Structure formats: structure tokens, C-alpha cells
């Protein structure tokens, strides 16, 4: 019954989306108020129905209802409840349902809470939102019905891929999806504004919170995904340039550019056409990302769904929406009026530089990700890997960091280069000192890119704090705080990446219980191998006593075996200290009762994810700062009435 109710809710929601599209556009065209009046309730009802359908699927998973095909193929009755819950979206159908649910709920929120947009643009936006949703409803209902039954039902399910049975990964996809869908709302705003020809500062102020929220979630999602790959795959790396990773990086790059240009538009009324273009590009990138991940056209280390039919469906959607939006853009952009002017030496210019660099990096990642597909069409197979991305994106990212440090130190509209020079004197001095110090102590030991990375990180870190210089800290707006913290986060992250690639030490050894291993100042005593068992796995575990001159600590790297589906996973042991992480992996048993062990000491590697957290925090502060004014204003107005 629950499954049928969920499916019915989904069909109803799809019908409402069609109705919403019709109402919004026929109402806008003929100016019929009674039609337009029904748009908002329709959007709200659609949001409620999708939430109901998603709730139904969660219930089916929690109850382990094996008569539902999706549950039977992706869950197991013996699984811990958290993974039954998270297993709801740990598969193709469930994650697509999550997508339309987030879209439906976001649409309802736009309908209910959006006050900054004028009515016509608001309605056009809701119409555009319905048009996007419709494509995804069609995809879900015609090619990936999550509520399909199986007869006869199996006694137990096949289980969830053990790599996904991890709290980090359980909540990683929803975070990313919320980000993707936030960008779809920004896209709808852009289409709405193009349709009503009202691309201006007010429109940018309405769009900005959505872009900010999407960007914060994407940042969190990417950071969490990177940390998951680092500790769960047991290979000690934090970025692989895998297509699936690039799929989340590309929308983030576009959203970062959009975030900055929408800020220029909202506060200075410049970069109108460019902002619209970026909104189209950002959502295109989240669609491209979904296409890459869900079509299985590029196999990746993550390789989940492989189904060419679904791939072509998403490709068709992609062509329809992106093509449609670009056509609309080309047709209407001539009518978008010129915004305010600025001088070449100004903060606006630096933001343009930032946008261009981000776009170039985005282009490079996109080319590298799609190039193997293009050559395969001509019959030969190539693979593009880390050497390409590192070599091209690395230097550009460093240039971007420098622009990021200088931008906030420049004035809006026009500035004098002499004054800017004076303001950046301190960071430049620090950079010079760092170059000298590292040439003395680390020359020849580390590569050029990590070397430059450390220099740029140190100097940009200081530069990013300078906007707070000589300001009354408690009176500084939250928005400024957000910018400072996010930029500082970039420097912190960069420092972690550079430090990890420059100073990591590795030891690989086959050892017997009782042996002692020494590396990078650490002493590891291999005590014993013990069998252990969990809810749905058994494992061999090495018990190791480690110390670095202080009190010894016990750590337990494991090799875990899951029976359903039969898989072995590596559970690395991580010991975090303020100045780095000790990372120990247990391998297999070899001749003579010895066990393979891999020990890494990774100085300051945790800064990578700390920086990611700071970037997201900065975005959240900016978002709160923007919204807070509204709340305080309302509160004051109410007090005045009393």
C-alpha cells in the first residue's frame, strides 16, 4: 500500500507541475490574475506531494519491505537502521527521487517566502522551475520508478555496497543534491528575469541567497566527499580527479563565479549579462555532473549505475534545458540594459579577473573530463589523469588565490594602483620571507608546486585578514566576516594540500605481531591480530600501540569482510594530532606469518578539510548576515506598530 501511495503522489505531483507551467505562462502572457493566483498554491502542493513520496520510500526501506524491487536490490534486513535509512538515496532511483523532492520543496519555498522579486518575474520563475521539474518527473516515472514491485519477494535483500555503509557517505549525496538543486532555482530565476526583461539589482538580491545556500552545501559536500575517499578507500589521497569528483567540482567552480558576479550585480548593478550567463552555466554543470555520474558513460573508481538508456534520457534533458536557456539567452540578452560602469583598477575588475580564472579552470576540468569520451567517438581510447589536471589547473588555482587576496583590498568603482600597492605591502613582504626561509630549509626537498603553494597560502592567509584591519570588529557586518573567513579557509586548505604533498612520509613493511616499526618520529608496536565482528561484517584487526615520545595509544586498522554483497573493505586507522595525521592500513597476510602494513605520517593534512569547513562557514555567515537585516527590519516594524 505504501509503495502505491508513494507512486500515486509522484504522478499527482508531476501533474501539478504541468499545471503550474501552464498557469504561470498563460497567466503571464494574458495578464490573467486568476490564473496567476493559483500558481503559488500549486507549487506548495507539489512540494508536499514529493515530500510524501520520499517519506514513503524511506518507510519502505526502514521496514525492509522486500516486495519492493529497489529495497530488495539495495538493502538487507540485517543492516543497521542508519544504513537502511541512508540506503534510500544510496542508489539510482532513490537519489533521483531525492532530487525531485528537493526541487519540489525548494519550489514551494520560492512560492511561499520569496518577497524581493516583482510579481511577474516571480511567476515566470515558478513556471521555469515547473518546466525543469517536469523533465525529472518524466525521467523518474518512465525510466526509473523507485516503487516498482517484485514478485515473489526474496526473503532478504542483496545489501548495500559496503563502501557506502559509512556515516560520512550516508549524508554526502543529499548535501550535494541540495546544492545542485539550489543552482536549479538560481537558473529558474535567471530564466524568469530574462522572460520579463527585468535583469537588475533587485533580481540579483533575490537570487543571491539561493546561490549562497547552494554554494555552501556544495562546499560541504565536496569537503565531506574528499574526506570520505581519504579515509574509506585506504589509499591516503584526498583528490583523484575522478569523473565523479569532477562532476561535483565543476558546478562548484561555476557557483563560485556566479556568487561573486551576483554580488557585483546586487550591490553595484554591473555584470548583468555575465551573471545570467553564469547562472545558466552553473545549472548546466550540475546537469552534466548528474549525467556523468548516473549514465555510467564514464566508468570511475566510484562506478555505481551503468545504464545507457538512462544516460540518453539525461542527455536529452540536458540538451533541452541548456539549449533552451542558451537560445533564450541569445534572443533576449540584447534587451538587457547596460549596468553601472567601473574603472579598470577597481574591485569590480578584480572580480572579473576572478570570474575569468574560475571559468578557465572550469573549462580545463570539463575538457579533461570529456576528452576521453570525444576521442572514443573517433575510435581510440585515451585516459586523462592527474598529471594533466595538476599541471594545468594547479598554476591557475594559485593565480586565482592571488586575485582573491588582492580583490577585497581594492575599492569599488575606481582605485589608484599606488594605494593598492601600499595595502598589499605586508602580504608581499610575508611572501618574500617565506620564499627565503623555504629556500634555506626545504630547497630541493619539495616540488615547485607545493613550494609555491606554501608561499601563496601564507601570504594569502594574511592578506585575507586585512579587510578587518582597523575596523571595529563587533560592528563589521556579518557579510564582511563571511568573506574574510571564506577566503582564509581557501588559504588554510591550500596550506594543507601543499604540506601533504611536500612532507608526507610513507613506510611499507610486512611485520609479525611483536615487531616494532619506526617512522617519522613515531614508534609503532604491532601487538596482535584479532578477529572481530560487527552487525553485518567480520574483520581481522591489527592492534597497534603507537607513540611519539608520549603516552602510547592503541589503534586498530582493519580489513573488513561483508557477506552481502561479498566484498572486502579497508578500514584505515587514523590518529589525529594538532600537527598532522598518522594513517595506518592493514594489508593481507604473507609468508611467514607476516602482515602487510602501510604507515603514513601526513603533516597538517587535516587543514585541507578544516579549510573546506571555514569556506562553508564563511558562506553561511554571509547568508545569515543578508537575511538578518530582513528579520531585524520586520521586528522593528512590529515594535513600531505596537
Amino acid at each position, binding site marked *: 500500500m505504501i509503495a502505491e501511495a508513494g507512486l500515486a503522489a509522484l504522478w499527482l505531483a508531476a501533474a501539478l507541475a504541468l499545471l503550474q507551467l501552464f498557469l504561470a505562462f498563460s497567466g503571464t502572457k494574458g495578464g490573467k490574475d486568476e490564473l496567476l493566483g493559483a500558481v503559488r498554491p500549486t507549487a506548495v502542493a507539489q512540494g508536499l506531494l514529493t515530500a510524501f513520496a520520499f517519506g514513503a520510500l524511506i518507510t519502505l526501506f526502514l521496514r525492509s519491505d522486500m516486495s519492493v524491487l529497489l529495497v530488495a536490490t539495495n538493502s538487507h534486513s540485517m543492516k543497521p537502521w542508519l544504513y537502511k535509512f541512508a540506503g534510500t538515496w544510496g542508489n539510482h532511483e532513490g537519489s533521483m527521487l531525492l532530487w525531485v523532492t528537493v526541487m519540489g520543496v525548494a519550489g514551494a519555498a520560492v512560492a511561499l517566502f520569496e518577497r524581493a522579486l516583482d510579481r511577474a518575474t516571480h511567476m515566470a520563475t515558478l513556471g521555469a522551475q515547473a518546466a525543469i521539474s517536469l523533465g525529472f518527473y518524466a525521467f523518474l516515472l518512465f525510466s526509473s520508478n523507485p516503487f516498482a514491485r517484485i514478485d515473489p519477494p526474496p526473503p532478504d535483500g542483496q545489501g548495500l*555496497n559496503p563502501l557506502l555503509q559509512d556515516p560520512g557517505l550516508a549524508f554526502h549525496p543529499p548535501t550535494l543534491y541540495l546544492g545542485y538543486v539550489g543552482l536549479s532555482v538560481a537558473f529558474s530565476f535567471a530564466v524568469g528575469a530574462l522572460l520579463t526583461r527585468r535583469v537588475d539589482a533587485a533580481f540579483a538580491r533575490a537570487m543571491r541567497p539561493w546561490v549562497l545556500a547552494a554554494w555552501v552545501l556544495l562546499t560541504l559536500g565536496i569537503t565531506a566527499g574528499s574526506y570520505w575517499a581519504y579515509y574509506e578507500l*585506504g*589509499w591516503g589521497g584526498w583528490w583523484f580527479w575522478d569523473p565523479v569528483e569532477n562532476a561535483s567540482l565543476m558546478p562548484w567552480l561555476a557557483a563560485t563565479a556566479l556568487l561573486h558576479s551576483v554580488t557585483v550585480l546586487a550591490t553595484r548593478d554591473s555584470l548583468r549579462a*555575465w551573471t545570467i550567463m553564469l547562472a545558466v552555466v552553473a545549472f548546466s554543470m550540475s546537469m552534466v555532473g548528474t549525467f556523468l555520474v548516473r549514465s555510467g558513460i*564514464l*566508468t570511475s*573508481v*566510484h*562506478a555505481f549505475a551503468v545504464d545507457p538508456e538512462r544516460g540518453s534520457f539525461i542527455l536529452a534533458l540536458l540538451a533541452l534545458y541548456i539549449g533552451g536557456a542558451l537560445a533564450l539567452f541569445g534572443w533576449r540578452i540584447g534587451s538587457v540594459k*547596460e549596468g553601472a*560602469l*567601473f*574603472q*579598470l583598477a577597481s574591485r569590480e575588475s578584480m572580480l*572579473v579577473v576572478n570570474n*575569468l*580564472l574560475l*571559468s*578557465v579552470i572550469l*573549462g*580545463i576540468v570539463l*575538457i*579533461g573530463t570529456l*576528452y*576521453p569520451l570525444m*576521442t572514443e567517438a573517433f575510435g581510440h*581510447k*585515451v*585516459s*586523462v*589523469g592527474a*598529471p*594533466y589536471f595538476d*599541471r*594545468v589547473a594547479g598554476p591557475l588555482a594559485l593565480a586565482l588565490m592571488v586575485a582573491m587576496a588582492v580583490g577585497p583590498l581594492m575599492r569599488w568603482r575606481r582605485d589608484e594602483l599606488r594605494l593598492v600597492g601600499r595595502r598589499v605591502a605586508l602580504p608581499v613582504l610575508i611572501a618574500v620571507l617565506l620564499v627565503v626561509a623555504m629556500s634555506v630549509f626545504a630547497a630541493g626537498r619539495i616540488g615547485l608546486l607545493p613550494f609555491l603553494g606554501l608561499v601563496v597560502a601564507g601570504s594569502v592567509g594574511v592578506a585575507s585578514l586585512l579587510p578587518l584591519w582597523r575596523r571595529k570588529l563587533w560592528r563589521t557586518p556579518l557579510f564582511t566576516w563571511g568573506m574574510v573567513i571564506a577566503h582564509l579557509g581557501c588559504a588554510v586548505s591550500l596550506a594543507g594540500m601543499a604540506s601533504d604533498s611536500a612532507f608526507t612520509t610513507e613506510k*611499507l*613493511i*610486512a611485520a609479525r605481531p611483536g615487531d616494532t616499526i619506526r617512522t617519522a618520529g613515531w614508534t609503532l608496536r604491532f601487538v596482535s591480530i584479532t578477529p572481530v565482528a560487527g552487525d553485518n561484517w567480520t574483520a581481522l584487526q591489527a592492534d597497534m600501540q603507537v607513540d611519539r615520545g608520549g603516552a602510547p595509544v592503541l589503534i586498530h586498522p582493519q580489513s573488513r569482510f561483508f557477506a552481502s*554483497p561479498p*566484498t*572486502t573493505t579497508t578500514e584505515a586507522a587514523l590518529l589525529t594530532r594538532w600537527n598532522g595525521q598518522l594513517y595506518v*592500513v592493514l*594489508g*593481507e597476510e*604473507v*609468508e*611467514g606469518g*607476516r602482515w*602487510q602494513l*602501510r604507515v603514513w605520517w601526513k603533516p597538517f593534512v587535516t587543514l585541507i578539510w578544516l579549510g573546506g569547513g571555514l569556506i562553508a562557514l564563511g558562506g553561511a555567515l554571509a547568508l545569515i548576515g543578508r537575511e538578518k537585516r530582513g528579520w531585524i527590519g520586520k521586528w522593528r516594524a512590529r515594535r513600531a506598530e505596537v
Partner: protein
Amino acid sequence: MKAKHQRLILALAALVAIVAAGLLAASALKDEAAYFYTPDDIRTKGVEPGKAIRLGGMVVKGSLKRAPDGVTLRFDVTDGKATVPATFNGIAPDLFREGSGVVAEGAMDRNGRFIATNLLAKHDERYMPRELEGMRYDEKTHQMKAER
């Protein structure tokens, strides 16, 4: 500055950025796109020692040996036309075994041996590295064949 000039400068900057990106990507791709090699590619085209590449093929049955240190593997990689000896220092992935496909990252040394720094074996039973799609290992002849 007039609006027209500003727009012109922005458009020029964007154009320069796009062209630069294209050139940069193209030059890097030219170097790095020859990133994936089969043993036959190595025999016919040759690779300079020390250049980072990916080597893809099948692990020859009976060739897998473990060195006395317990953490060094020696094996041969074949594509049916040529065979390259390889060494890997590390913990092999669980699905790395004789007769199955492997993509190894690393570089050739001066003696024609491939020194792998990373092994990408199958992620699960069904997964095959994209570069090896359509290949199958024949257990009797120790040859790789194209699947029908």
C-alpha cells in the same frame, strides 16, 4: 571610460582567457593524453623512462610472485600482443589477481620494467577499467582476445 570601451575590454579579456585556456589544455593534453598505454603500445611506440603513464592489460597467469620483503609484487601485464614485466610496491587491491584486468599507474624504468605506484583493479566483480573494455583473457592460451 565609455560604456562601449568597457564592454570591448571585457569581451577582449574573456576572449584572451578562453583562447589561453584552450591552448593550455591542448598542449597539456598533447603531452598527457598519451597517458594510457597497452604493452603493445610500449613495444611499438616506446615510452621514455620516468614519464608518468597508465599501463593497462591482463595479469598473466602464473606470473605473480611476491618478493621476500612481503610487500613487493612482480607480475607480467599482457594485451595478447606484447608483455611487460611490472613491479608494485604496496598493498594490492582485493580484486587484484592473476588472469584479471588491471590498470597500473607508474613509469617505465631503464630496464624495460614497469614500476607501478598505484594499482586500479576492478572495483567490484562487474567493473572493468574503461580502457580494457571489450577485452577478455583466454585461460588456455594466455592471450587477450576481443570479446564478440
